[in-house]
């Protein structure tokens, strides 16, 4: 489902070049749940953004849902993000003035096939799926942190994507709320959704099917000599 080969990404910081990813390779099979753990600034969010087609200034090969990202123009990349990939962010990134159902329905505006009625129906379904059906008309300000993240997950699920990309999805939640979100991911994964989550939290990596570690731009299996050295 996801194939990454020799992925490198550098940022220019004045005169200096900062290499965030350094020859990363990764394969994620359909229906698999992979957690990438690493400290802040280790490059895990950058990895996720590249796989999701948000960051295109990289070297290497990335294939997502059968599409080689380098071959896609802005329109095709946007279609991929709309149709095949769902994003869940640490800070939820909900539009504060819109209701939960309007936030969830946002991806439908960019779908060539979904009309207004169907979008709303699907958004309500997605909210029900994450246990937020009764709060569809509330704005984010009137929701708790866990509820906001559920709304964000519902938004990621609206277009029935193949892959869920999660960037620190429990980072802003307390332990109990975080557990609820993790349980939701487990359910979604069991239903066949491929999940790639990056986190620095152990509780999320504990339930993932496979855990990879990232450090100083390099990705490796835990238990390898490098991991042991950490």
């Amino acid at each position, binding site marked *: 489902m996801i194939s990454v080969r020799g992925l490198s990404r550098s940022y220019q910081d004045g005169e200096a070049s900062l290499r965030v990813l350094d020859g990363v390779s990764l394969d994620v099979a359909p229906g698999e749940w992979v957690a990438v753990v690493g400290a802040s600034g280790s490059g895990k*969010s950058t990895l996720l*953004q590249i796989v999701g087609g948000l*960051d295109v200034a990289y070297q290497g090969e990335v294939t997502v849902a059968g599409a080689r990202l380098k071959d896609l123009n*802005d329109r095709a990349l946007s279609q991929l993000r709309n149709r095949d990939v769902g994003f869940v962010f640490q800070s939820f990134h909900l*539009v504060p003035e819109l209701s939960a159902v309007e936030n969830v329905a946002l991806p439908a*505006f*960019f*779908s060539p096939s979904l009309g207004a009625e169907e979008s709303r129906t699907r958004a309500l379904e997605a909210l029900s799926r994450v246990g937020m059906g009764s709060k569809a008309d509330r704005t984010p300000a009137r929701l708790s942190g866990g509820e906001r993240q559920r709304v964000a997950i519902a938004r990621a699920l609206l277009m029935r994507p193949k892959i869920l990309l999660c960037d620190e999805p429990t980072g802003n939640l307390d332990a109990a709320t975080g557990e609820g979100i993790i349980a939701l991911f487990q359910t979604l994964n069991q239903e066949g959704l491929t999940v790639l989550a990056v986190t620095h939290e152990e509780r999320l990596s504990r339930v993932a099917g496979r855990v990879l570690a990232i450090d100083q731009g390099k990705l490796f299996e835990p238990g390898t000599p490098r991991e042991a050295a950490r």
Partner: protein
Amino acid sequence: MRTSSLWRLTRLTLRRDRKGALLSAFGVAVGVGALVFFVGLGLGVGQVVRERVFPVDANLLEVVPPPVSLGGLLGGGKLDAATVQRLSALDGVARVYRKMNVRVPAATRYDGAFFGAHIRMGLEVLAVGVDPGLLEQDVVVGKFEDKGPGQPIPGVAATRLLEIYNKTFAPARNLPRLSAALLAGFTFPVDFNRSFIAATSGGPVIPTQVKLVGLSDRAPLAGVAIPLDTAIRLNQQTGQDAATFTGVTLVARDPAKIPALMAQVKEMGLSLDDTERRMSENAGLAVVLTTSALALLSVLICLLAAVNIAHALFSSVRARAKELGVLRAVGATRRDVQALILTEASVIGLFGGAVGTLGAVLISLGMDALSSRVLPPFPFKPDTFFRFPWPVWVGGLSLGLLASFGGALFPSRKAAATDPARTLAG
């Protein structure tokens, strides 16, 4: 993104900052409103000038003998029957109407009833004989023809003269205001070859009565039009030139033929009396220039509104960076983001343009109502000073749209260039 989706998303995003959108729309409305108001005022006043103050028939051309003519010594430059014949044969001429001034002074001394009042006055009268065909459409009582010596002479006065009488002369002297229908049939004495101020020919004084049979835009402003045969007869009786004409009105088949006709007339050694036309053009030009200056000021207001929209949208794009990043993450292309910002601005501009245009029309109605109550009557005072044909409405909306769209161009590019990876990080 589909148009329907773009429209729905625009409504959704505009709803979230109604106050900001209304503020931007207000700026556009002020600029557009000012422009529509001044353009409407210019068109309205221009119409009054063209149609009432200096009514000029686009088909007519006034031919007069040249002021100084060597041709006269050589037999040319005179407006005699032969010349009129040549004029009527010119290409593009439909009809010719001859004119001949009564070449002796004339005066009226009136002492009697005047529509419920009593007046006593003496006036110099300029009588111009014209071919009846020129005025027959405006004659409402009897026929405009010479009835012979001793009979009242049919006369046609200028419509504008009645307007000036009603708005200045009558109120100042507490005289009744008159209509064209009331005046028809009014008869007053005129003595030809008599004057209060000028020397006469020394011939006999011819006392007559002039009976007004109508009012016309084609009658001389400072005088009265009488049948041509009457003018010829009076000139013969007083020993004046009764063979040459003081002017000829040419009616062109098509207004487009006028320039060519003018050239041909000049080639014949004759002159053109375009005083009325020039006065109309000059007055019209003055109106256009004044209106243009005010319209330019309004366009500047619109430009300021566009700058304000640009500024507001730049701030909005900065504040909405994360939201725009989310839109990109859920499938928006760069063009979708740009289209969203441009559509938001267009809606603001159209709304502002519509409010401004409607506001200008409403204010103009208020101004007309106020002027009818507050302003004293004056000649050619119109019922409305404004005119708003459909292109003005369309122009108002378009300007609002243009100002907003122009203002949104750079902010929309900036929005489209938003890097979602950067804005969504952390």
